[in-house]
């Protein structure tokens, strides 16, 4: 942002605002309205930066943390998810940490930088306050015993070292160490109580104020303190006012000076207007000026808002009348009134937008997507900023008038505080620092009184208060943050020395330089460095195990070649949740081959199902489909179809009437409510007490009532048509397009020969009740919707003789003995539904029935595997109960966790299934099929990386950020959520719009960057990397980690940004092997490391 200010200080306000709005896209959340929720990198705007730098920048901008808190990492360390070896490796990776540096000698060894850093990561060595130190010494016996969190080996080492220097007992050793800490740092520790400072004698005060000139008289000392207070106030003055427009808005400045947050007052009226403007159909009555834009609508309403009458703000009315028509002009006018230098305007507006990231982001999204979903309300970001500015000033006026009787502008505030330095000083320390209680009470009372007294009278009171605070700050108890001190240096050193097992004599021997080296190493470990080191170690731990498993599995997995033919082939979505389903299926029948690909199956289309009122895009969000496929009744004249349509319309009309009609209106609503009230207790009891059975019963009832209709697809279009556009999509695909889509897909997954008799395309989706975030659980490659229709369309295309003819001409010969079938897998209840089974020729039926039974069994086993992660399911749940349990979750409207979504995602394998089949990956891997032996020039891999890379990275990073700081990047608990404007959720009835993932979705997630392992030669990958800027951004900037597994050898290279390929040195030893997955996961709740699965590696009949 500063770049803006520097390069373009003045210019036409409209151009500047345009540039600003374009820039805001990089800093505001980019989440779409919630029905179109799609996982994306939360920090998408900073993706051009390296991962680590982007996190730092985001922390600066939004204050949100980029790594898990240290305490969480420490917990992971205790649970063995990170080991000391991982930490050492992570430190070795960072040259700037200089882990090998020798800091001091200890006994016959050395203390290296690495030891200090690891100790600092594992234990908090925080500074203490005077009171905390007293408490530690008096209540915790810190000077008589070793620290309670000391590991036994450190304690042994410390006591042994002390004994070697002639100190025998523990208490003496600890006391001696404390003395050594103080001595080497040149400090003395005398216990002092902060309240003792209230009664300073003039002599004491003089001594504090004028330590060097001891003979000065007390009176002079007082005026000296006055001078010092003034000098300090001048510095504070600059620091506060200079931050406006960079880090603060007027609201922030007033908050720092008065402790009052005008946002509390401003938010409700603002949110009412904002959500009324963006509303997508919840309210029944909108601002009559809504179609003239937000500013005009707000202004029309503000003119008629009589709130000023009751709030004693007659000036509002005048101000509102003087507002210009043009929002850009208004912004310039407001910023001039505020008295902000022109160079800082953009910075100020950016800050303003970031104060309500959710609403600002949504407004910007709608600004960038005009006419979204048919809503023609104009949404202009500039108008939003204009309204925010005016409202901020109107509400700031009250605070300014109340406290200082001046206008709310920076020059006025400057003018005032230049004249009242003591007041500034007191306010600063009261609201921005920690004062002891007696000073807080005193200062707060002055702030209260100042609202009734004149400024001149008050100055008499401010001055002594500022004086008292200044004196307190000079005392040892206040611990000024410069130089070494007992609380900030000696105490952490004392704790550190114990953890390193150093005794007092050793510390003394190292001298002040040694102590300084220890402390400096500790200081070097900033929050950011600690977070990064932890994350690197955490990722490494997981990565090592994955690599071990892949190496151990090399050559074990079947279907590297398809000889003899598999019994059937099933193409699943790449989704990590399908890993478990596929593994169980392969264990049940090793003669099946499973493949994976982005779940839209290369068919980007607008889909309009039989019952839909409009077509929705089923493809990754970055693609705009130009084809539409409709599901139509097989026979238009079918009476069953007419009945279905009528009954369904009736049902929906009644539902609409009940849910909406009882919400709006008076007497009709009363009649409806009374009617609905008769059934409500029974419905409620059914839904709450027997969720599974009740929902199943209701579904059956609905199906029986509406009846089902056989349907057909509008699949094929004539070849002679104008090329389709997104505005005028073409109904159906031409024969050539179909062949191209199908052929391209089969080539991408390496299925160009060896077709089994049945090839199943398995789309997926999720269903749940009472879940505003439903789209976050469905297929990410289908814009958060169900991928079943894509599977069905693909299968229908691949079965057409016209298409097969064209494919044969391109070298893909699909024999007549092969049929494609579409199906859909529900990831919530693990049921599989088939499409168009009736159309399947008789000879294929038995095979389908067998496969169907196997899928059912796989679903049961998968349900059991999933149940181990649900706290509400007993740990060792037999399959039938687990099967019912997951179904009941999906049907239960009280369930805030119908399923766990992508919570377990961590890695992605791009390659033949033989690479990973035969090992247990705990549903943590995206599995994408690619055959390196059929892709000599790497073009297929290039396309796969470009399409699957961003999808996987988006899912992984959204989970990452929502997990590391759920308050900052996620949307908090579902329990408080309130659906607003049909576009998002708020907490309660008037908060910022919450974006990201709810807490219920990320609880068990292990936030780390996605590890992508590609089965390909490093040279191929390097060539692709060099050609593709999007991959350079993702991989080179470290948003995902890339590794290459050699197709023909047990060898893995890891790509290190800045270094290139590094050969992985580990081996395949020690990986346990079990017969079935269940033998491995039984009885465990937590994430599990990989193991080899014997039954899935076998190929029955393949020899």
């Amino acid at each position, binding site marked *: 942002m500063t770049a803006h200010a520097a390069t373009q200080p003045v210019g036409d306000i409209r151009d500047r605002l345009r540039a600003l709005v374009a820039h805001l896209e990089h800093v505001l959340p980019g989440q779409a309205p*919630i*029905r179109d929720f799609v996982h994306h990198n939360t920090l998408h705007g900073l993706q051009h930066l390296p991962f680590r730098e982007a996190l730092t920048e985001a922390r600066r901008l939004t204050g949100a943390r980029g790594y898990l808190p240290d305490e969480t990492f420490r917990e992971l360390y205790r649970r063995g998810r990170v080991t000391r070896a991982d930490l050492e490796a992570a430190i070795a990776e960072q040259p700037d940490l200089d882990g090998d540096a020798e800091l001091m000698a200890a006994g016959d060894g050395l203390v290296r930088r690495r030891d200090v850093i690891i100790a600092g990561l594992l234990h908090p060595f925080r500074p203490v306050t005077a009171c905390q130190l007293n408490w530690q010494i008096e209540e915790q016996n810190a000077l008589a015993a070793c620290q309670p969190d000391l590991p036994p080996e450190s304690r042994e080492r410390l006591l042994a070292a002390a004994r070697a220097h002639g100190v025998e007992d523990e208490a003496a050793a600890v006391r001696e160490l404390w003395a050594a800490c103080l001595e080497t740092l040149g400090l003395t520790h005398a216990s002092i109580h902060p309240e003792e400072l209230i009664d300073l004698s003039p002599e004491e005060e003089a001594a504090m104020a004028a330590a060097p000139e001891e003979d000065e008289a007390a009176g002079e000392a007082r005026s000296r303190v006055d001078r010092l207070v003034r000098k300090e106030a001048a510095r504070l003055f600059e620091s506060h006012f200079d931050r406006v427009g960079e880090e603060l808005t007027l609201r922030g400045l007033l908050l720092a000076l008065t402790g009052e947050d005008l946002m*509390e007052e401003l938010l409700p009226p603002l949110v*009412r207007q904002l*959500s*009324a403007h963006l509303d997508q*159909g*919840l309210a*029944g*009555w*909108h*601002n*009559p*000026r809504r179609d003239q834009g937000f500013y005009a609508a707000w202004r*029309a*309403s503000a003119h*008629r808002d009589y*709130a000023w*009458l*009751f709030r004693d703000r007659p000036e509002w009315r005048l101000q509102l009348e003087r507002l210009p028509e043009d929002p850009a002009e208004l912004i310039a006018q407001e910023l001039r009134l505020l008295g902000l230098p022109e160079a800082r305007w953009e910075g100020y507006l950016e800050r303003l937008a970031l104060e309500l990231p959710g609403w600002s982001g949504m407004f910007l999204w709608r600004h960038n997507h005009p006419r979204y979903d048919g809503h023609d309300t104009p949404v202009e970001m500039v108008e939003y900023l204009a309204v925010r500015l005016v409202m901020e000033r109107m509400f700031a006026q009250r605070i300014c008038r109340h406290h200082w009787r001046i206008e709310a502008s920076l020059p006025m505030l400057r003018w005032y505080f230049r004249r009242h330095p003591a007041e500034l000083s007191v306010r600063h320390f009261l609201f921005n620092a920690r004062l002891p209680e*007696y000073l807080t009470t*005193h200062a707060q*009372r002055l702030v209260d009184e100042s609202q009734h007294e004149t400024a001149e009278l008050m100055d008499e009171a401010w001055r002594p208060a500022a004086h008292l605070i200044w004196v307190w700050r000079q005392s040892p108890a206040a611990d000024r943050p410069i130089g070494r001190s007992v609380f900030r240096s000696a105490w952490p050193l004392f704790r550190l020395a114990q953890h390193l097992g150093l005794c007092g004599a050793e510390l003394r021997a190292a001298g002040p330089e040694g102590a300084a080296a220890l402390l400096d190493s500790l200081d070097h470990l900033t929050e950011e460095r600690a977070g990064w080191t932890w994350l690197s170690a955490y990722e490494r731990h997981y990565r090592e195990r994955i690599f071990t498993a892949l190496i151990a599995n090399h050559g074990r997995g079947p279907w590297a070649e398809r000889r003899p033919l598999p019994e059937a082939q099933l193409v699943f979505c790449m989704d990590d949740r399908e890993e478990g389903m596929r593994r169980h299926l392969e264990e049940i029948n090793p003669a099946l081959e499973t493949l994976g690909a982005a779940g839209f199956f290369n068919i980007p289309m607008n889909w309009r199902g039989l019952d839909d009122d*409009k077509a929705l895009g089923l493809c990754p969000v970055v693609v705009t489909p130009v084809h539409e496929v409709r599901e139509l009744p097989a026979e238009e004249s079918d009476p069953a179809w007419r009945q279905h349509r009528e009954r369904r319309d009736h049902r*929906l009309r009644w539902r*609409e009437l009940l849910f909406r009609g009882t*919400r*709006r209106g*008076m007497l009709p*609503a*009363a009649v409806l*409510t*009374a009617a609905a*009230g*008769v059934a409500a*207790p029974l*419905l*409620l*009891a059914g839904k*709450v007490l027997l969720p599974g059975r009740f929902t199943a019963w209701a579904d059956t009832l609905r199906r029986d009532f509406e009846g089902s209709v056989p349907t057909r697809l509008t699949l094929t279009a004539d070849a002679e048509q104008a090329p389709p556009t997104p505005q005028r999509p073409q109904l159906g695909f031409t024969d050539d397009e179909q062949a191209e889509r199908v052929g391209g897909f089969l080539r991408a997954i390496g299925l160009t020969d060896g077709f089994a008799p049945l090839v199943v395309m398995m789309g997926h989706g999720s269903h749940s009740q*009472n*879940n*505003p975030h*439903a789209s976050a659980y469905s297929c990410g490659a289908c814009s958060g919707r169900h991928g079943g229709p894509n599977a069905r369309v693909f299968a229908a295309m691949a079965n057409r003789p016209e298409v097969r003819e064209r494919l044969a001409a391109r070298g893909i010969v699909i024999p007549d003995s092969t049929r494609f079938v579409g199906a859909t897998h529900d990831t919530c209840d693990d049921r599989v539904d088939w499409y168009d089974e009736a159309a399947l020729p008789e000879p294929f039926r038995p095979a389908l029935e067998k496969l169907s039974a196997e899928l059912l069994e796989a679903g049961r086993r998968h349900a059991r595997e999933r149940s181990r992660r649900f*706290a*509400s399911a007993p740990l060792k749940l037999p399959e039938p109960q687990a099967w019912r349990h997951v179904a009941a979750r999906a049907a239960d*409207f*009280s369930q*805030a966790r119908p399923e766990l979504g992508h919570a377990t995602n961590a890695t992605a394998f791009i390659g033949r299934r033989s690479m990973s089949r035969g090992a247990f990956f705990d549903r943590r891997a995206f599995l994408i099929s690619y055959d390196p032996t059929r892709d000599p020039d790497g073009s297929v891999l290039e396309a796969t990386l470009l399409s699957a890379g961003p999808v996987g990275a988006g899912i992984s990073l959204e989970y990452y950020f929502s997990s590391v700081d759920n308050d900052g990047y996620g949307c908090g*608990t*579902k*329990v*408080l*959520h*309130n*659906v*607003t404007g049909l576009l998002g959720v*708020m907490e*309660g*009835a008037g908060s910022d719009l919450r974006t990201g993932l709810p807490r219920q979705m990320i609880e068990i997630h292990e936030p780390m960057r996605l590890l992508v392992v590609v089965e390909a030669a490093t040279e191929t990958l390097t060539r692709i990397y060099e050609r593709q800027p999007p991959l350079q951004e993702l991989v080179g900037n470290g948003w995902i980690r890339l590794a290459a597994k050699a197709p023909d050898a047990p060898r893995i290279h890891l790509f290190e940004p800045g270094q290139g390929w590094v050969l992985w040195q580990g081996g395949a030893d020690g990986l346990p092997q079990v017969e079935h997955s269940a033998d491995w996961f039984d009885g465990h709740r937590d994430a599990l490391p990989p193991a080899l699965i014997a039954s899935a590696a076998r190929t029955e009949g393949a020899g």
Partner: protein
Amino acid sequence: MSWVGLIPLLPLLAALAIGLRMVTGSGRGEAGETATARIGVWAALGALLLLLLLDGVALVSGAPGTVTLGTWFESGAFTIPVGFTLDGLSLPVATLVALIAFLAQRFSVNYLHREPGFHRFFFGMSLFTGGMLLIVLSGNAVLAFAGWELAGVSSWMLIGYAYERPTATGNALRAFVTNRIGDAGFLFGIVLALLWLGSVEWGAMAERAPELGTLSAGVLALGFVIAALAKSAQVPFAPWVARALEGPTPSSAIFYGALMIHAGVYLLIRLQPVLEQSPAVMGLIAAVGLLTALYGWLSGLVQTDVKSSLMFATTTQVGLMVLACGLGWFTLAAWYLGLHAAWRAYQFLLSPSYLELTGAAPAVNPPSRSRGLYTAALQRFWLEAFTDWLLVRPTRALASDVNSFDQRVVSRLVGLPEGSAPGTTEVVRGHGAAGRLLQWSAGWLNAFERHLVFHGGGKLSRLLQRLGGYLLTVESLLERPVYLLLLIMATFAVIL
């Protein structure tokens, strides 16, 4: 029939048990969830089963009418019994209350899993269930008032569920304070009933009401009516309920959607014989109900979030019930109360699925194209700003004046140093007259303590120091308005 008392008692005991578990630490965190949930859910189910049993008895052999368990207290001519009214009105409503409370708690077991406030939530819900059953079943106004207060306190607790958010706590306090006005009315009604009718039992009040003149009956009724209007969020008390949506979805559902908001209407129906003595009060009730219905209808139309929209719809419909009471159609109001409560509970619990339940919105004809009327509806007719202006600001000014009077006049009279000029031998410093007293006694204790210290015995001195610390904490708590209110409530409870 003495087991009738168990019905409200069961949930109250559950609240007590959950509270004890929270205090002793045995019911904390995820591990304690199952036990806490069981206590709450089974107690509610127990109450429901007992009520169903009672309903069965009533069906077979007629409603038992008034059941008196004993005497609460007696003073001269006044006796206040512990009794329950089990008639055709209270039994169905109580059954519905127990059913909805039971289902909502069952719902919350999954919904609130892993919430840090899980135990707090079930504590509040159980307390509320007990309170609500007391209101419905009680045989006299005093017992009903006890339930009234329990419901109020638990509502305050659950609005402030997310207490780390200042908006939530602010709104909780606001709702609580608004309801205090109603409570004052309730107490006023009770006192007048004791004075003029000699009894607070519903039955006796109904019998003796005709003896009163129109005016006395009106004044007596007015107290109860104010209480009812505040609890049922009628104009001008209406705004508190729109602020009460900060809690978890199930608590919003049963407090403001389904049960508590109907408590006022229930009270009006209970007092039918008294109200009917005063046409003026009936007229007032009807007018308020009509106004509220209009207010809720227009404001509800402009709401853009599901919960607020449901809340205003509820306000509208409860307004219609009040209107019905005002017109004398008490039976209609009673029927509608039950139906509305059931449907609204269902609708509120389903509110997170509104995205699916309502498809693309059909165009609605707005009631007016007027920008003024739209703004008025959007600003909720400035009702809140108006009441603030009318009540809150003058009260604050008064408080501020009293404070400075205390500091500048009383302190000087008592001879204590004004302001904060630091004294030399102070041990603690308090504010206000009570604080001064404490300060004085602490000073005295300090001297005593020094004496002790000089003559050995550090243990006692430390004990005294700690005691002083406790007293200081109590003092500082008392200075906070919330605790002051609690103190006032406690005082009332003692007086009664």
